[in-house]
């Protein structure tokens, strides 16, 4: 949720190393995968899931795992897919390109028939050719960089472009004319800011950038105020976002502020202070507590997770499993080409977060973004506007 792009702090050298390793490993993936058909036609169908179970993003691995497990339990209780049970196999990608390539190889060797993982875009991207070469269809629950679009995978989560659409819709709905977009110069927030600027036709748009490793944004705040905006957008993560909102308010900006999904977290209020949060909204995909029948789903989830609350992307992973299982039902088996064409053929497949149809490039039509506001307990974000019509 707050860093689908791996952070580039002092890891340039590491990144280069990872890229090399990814190349080397994906080069030999064909040989490994082409080895032999391990599917004997009976026994459970294995779904592989790559997610971070270690490192700074480790919390999301469990959120996703329990979501996927719940979906699999429900499907198995209903008779499974094409007469066979499903089984979940998880591997740790640590939100790291090197680790994710190795983990993807392990899943391929384990004989998985579908991939329902992918949280960090940077770690997910290098695994796509590995799964594709091994004939494994991919439904990605969380990772949503624009770079993943059109690579043969199907995405449950909306992309940056789609989130920008939602943001622009909301800005127009509020009747704002003079918008300042602030980003933190990191990959995903900058993409999002670029997309919003590109789509904001008829609006006066100015840009401002801050360094998220610093605490003092007074210079940027002055520059923003100098443009006397009637709407401010922040596309970065909540750590810097909280400070920025606090300092904007202290400097006298009282207008509306919209934050991107990286800042939709109760910590935003904690850092900014509750007073500063009046007039702040966010764009986000739905979480279970925003759903109409969400309470029941959360109860079911807790039975699987041993009492733990669901978190971001629990529901998207749940839906990724449901979607892939549905496609396999339609395809009456796990044949790659048939499953992919079945995924493409899904029309308004009913999911908790809204009906799902994939665009030709594999992204989700509409993206499922809604407007949320921080009026829940302790500054938690709750649904404000579904952006329908």
């Amino acid at each position, binding site marked *: 949720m707050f860093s689908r792009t791996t952070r580039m702090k002092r890891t340039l050298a590491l990144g280069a190393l990872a890229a090399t390793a990814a190349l080397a490993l994906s080069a030999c993936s064909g040989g490994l995968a082409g080895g032999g058909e391990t599917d004997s036609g009976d026994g459970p169908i294995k779904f592989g899931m790559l997610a971070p179970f270690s490192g700074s993003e480790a919390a999301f691995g469990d959120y996703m795992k329990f979501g996927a497990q719940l979906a699999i339990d429900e499907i198995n209780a209903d008779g499974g897919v094409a007469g066979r049970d499903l089984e979940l196999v998880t591997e740790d990608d640590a939100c790291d390109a090197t680790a994710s390539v190795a983990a993807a190889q392990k899943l391929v060797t384990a004989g998985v028939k579908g991939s329902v993982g992918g949280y960090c875009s940077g770690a997910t991207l290098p695994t796509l050719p590995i799964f594709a070469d091994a004939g494994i269809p991919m439904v990605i629950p969380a990772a949503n960089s624009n770079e993943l679009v059109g690579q043969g995978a199907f995405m449950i989560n909306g992309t940056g472009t789609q989130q920008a659409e939602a943001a622009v819709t909301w800005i127009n709905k509020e009747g704002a004319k003079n918008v300042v977009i602030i980003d933190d110069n990191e990959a995903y927030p900058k993409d999002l800011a670029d997309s919003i600027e590109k789509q904001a036709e008829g609006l006066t748009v100015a840009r*401002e950038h801050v360094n998220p490793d610093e605490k003092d944004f007074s210079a940027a705040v002055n*520059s923003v105020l*100098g443009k006397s905006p009637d709407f401010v957008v922040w596309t970065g993560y909540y750590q810097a976002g909280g400070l920025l909102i606090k300092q904007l308010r202290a400097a006298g900006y009282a207008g509306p502020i919209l934050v991107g999904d990286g800042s939709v977290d109760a910590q935003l209020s904690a850092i900014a202070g509750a007073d500063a949060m009046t007039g702040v909204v966010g764009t986000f995909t739905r979480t279970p507590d925003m759903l109409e029948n969400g309470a029941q789903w959360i109860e079911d989830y807790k039975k699987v997770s041993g009492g733990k609350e669901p978190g971001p992307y629990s529901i998207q992973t749940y839906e990724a499993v449901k979607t892939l299982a549905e496609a396999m039902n339609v395809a009456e088996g796990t044949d790659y080409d048939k499953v992919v064409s079945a995924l493409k053929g899904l029309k308004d497949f009913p999911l908790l977060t809204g009906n799902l149809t994939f665009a030709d490039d594999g992204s989700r039509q509409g993206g499922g973004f809604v407007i949320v506001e921080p009026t829940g307990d302790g500054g938690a974000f709750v649904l404000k506007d579904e952006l329908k019509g």
Partner: protein
Amino acid sequence: MFQLIWDGLFVGSFYALVALGYSMVYGIIKLLNFAHGDLYMLGSFIAFVVIGGLTGLMGIGSIPILLLVLLISMLATGGIGVLIERVAYRPLRNSPRLSALITAVGVSFTIEYAVRQIFGADPEVFPLQLSGQPMQILGARITMPQVILMAVAAVLMILLQRYVMHSREGRAMRAIALDQNAALLMGVNVNKVISRTFFIGSALAGAAGVMAAAYYGSIDFLMGFVIGLKAFTAAVIGGIGNLYGAMVGGIVLGLLESFGTNWFGGEWRDVFAFGFLILFLVFKPTGLLGERVVERV
């Protein structure tokens, strides 16, 4: 205009406090203490823990409490600074300077990731936050916390100046800076004075950390990294090794950033700040107030 100057002065006074420690240590043992920014971070985390304990006892949070916490954190970071010097730098004092520099980088990472292990990677919200209604003075927004924090910074700097320039121990420090061996022969306890220098420099960084935490409201384990680099830049601009230079350099850097951001936009702020570092190193390596660099044998 006055707003830009005020913002620059405010940020600059933090840079100056941190730069002082850099500069003192460099002036005396010619070591760039890369872990210095992390003492700033440690100061804020120590205050975070202390406030957690204190407010449990007293149930109030205000300026006197902040000053008390400031004092405790300064003593603690000062002690940690002495410990770092004893463990990581003193054994290498006669090694090539590069070894000590590499050790300093190691110390920096050790502190950062130890704090991450204890407190986690997510930022913590500092429990005691100063807030105040802005006043309009000459067209600039000025808040009471800003005035108080700048006053504390100024008091600390004046105390330091008095100590170094007018006390017996200060004279010993300056003597070691001039010639360590000669000072030793004159009966100066070199190790003790160097320890004391680390204590003072680290305590100042810790103080800046506590003040930043109380003003900005969130702390994280990497918060010392950028300010460490900025303080180094400030020390170079002012003239590294020179006390007044560090203060002037901090203020100048704060002003440069404030005006640079206004003219070129926020994305150029760091380019601008570190560009000046390069310019100074190339064209005026002694800085604005720097002393002649005397290479000693």
